[in-house]
């Protein structure tokens, strides 16, 4: 489900950084070391939740589109339906799927992001 980058690409970037020689006092490298720590945490969350979130997304997409398929095919089909106007961007069933997708994805990428709290607060009304 998760791309841009995929977990494999992210792991590769982490490994490449780890293979670099340590330059004590290098400000840029210290910054990249913090980014790499975040990437490891992201990968750990993805390993824990990714498969379940994708299975749930496939279930929702199947119901929304009335078609069977794997995540990539169904997701591409949804993009097409939005692009050609077959599904209205504010359709409530669509928005329910998009909300669940966004909440799942942010749980992997940035669980502390303020937009998650904002969306969940909106739910209370």
């Amino acid at each position: 489900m998760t791309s841009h980058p995929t977990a494999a690409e992210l792991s590769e970037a982490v490994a490449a950084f780890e293979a670099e020689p340590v330059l004590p006092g290098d400000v840029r490298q210290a910054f990249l070391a913090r980014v790499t720590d975040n990437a490891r945490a992201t990968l750990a969350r993805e390993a824990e939740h990714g498969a379940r979130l994708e299975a749930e997304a496939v279930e929702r997409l199947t119901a929304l589109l009335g078609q069977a398929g794997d995540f990539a095919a169904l997701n591409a089909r949804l993009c097409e339906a939005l692009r050609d106007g077959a599904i209205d961007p504010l359709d409530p069933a669509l928005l329910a799927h998009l909300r669940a997708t966004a909440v799942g994805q942010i749980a992997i990428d940035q669980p502390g992001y303020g937009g998650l709290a904002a969306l969940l607060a909106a739910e209370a009304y």
Partner: protein
Amino acid sequence: MDVAAALDRLAPRLSPTATRALNARRLSGGASLETWAFDLDDATPLILRRQPDSAIPRETALPLAGEAALIRAADAAGAPAPRVVHVCEPGDDLGEAYVMRRLEGETLGRRIVRDEAFAAVRPGLARRCGEVLARIHAIPTEGLPPLATSDARGELARYEAVYRQMGAARPILEAAFRWLEAIAPPPPERPVLVHGDFRNGNLMIHPEGGLVGVLDWELAHLGDPAEDLGWICVNSWRFGEWKKPVGGFGDYADLLDGHGGDIALDRVRFWQALGSLKWGVMCLMMYQSFATGADRSIERAMIGRRASETEIDLVALMEAA
């Protein structure tokens, strides 16, 4: 190129009481432009902005001499801007560059929205942003350097083309393009000078003086004044303070009042949503430079995962529509 040596030679032309330049150091940040801080031996604090020798020509950004002209126009109009001291000429050996006064303050959004040091200025900051933007938007456009003109539909089409070219399948962005296209406001009757990147990070905030400088004019253009008001409300620049829509420090009403009450909240919210969408596409673009091998740094890879923050914000905005 030896920037420090060139600045040293230039020093007497930057201040009548100076003979030398001291402490030249490159500041972090700014992938497309170099920013250097330095001092003169008469204690004048200065900043050099220059195009790196190897720079790829920037498609959308303004030439540096044009940027300097805009900063001077803003200064003349009473908007806080650093004073431009010198626009470099070929004999200065600094390439395309200009020198301005160095302002004192903070640009890091996280500190501005959270640190105790800024607690006293935060309550008035949204109104002040509105007032400053009103001054910028009122600058007569006749005397300005050549600038591109853009409107809501044009921006949507431009970013959709970038998104399509990447071949990404992101349903939330697809929905947002269609939604915003359906509600895009017509261009303003008279396009105004738009700063184009008015947000935390480009605003110099002083713990007592508040907003003392609007920086980074390279994305300035002619267009809809609501674009600048919407951009500073994008959640990505609120640094966790999501209940304060204006930059993580203020409310819509103060921003709109400060501007003079001439812009409707709906129009600002439209541009805010378009801002989130643009930032989402920009995150994916920056990831592309990792994917294509142009920049294999972990930083470029991880920025792609920030597209999902704009997606969650867009869902919230679409639900509220």
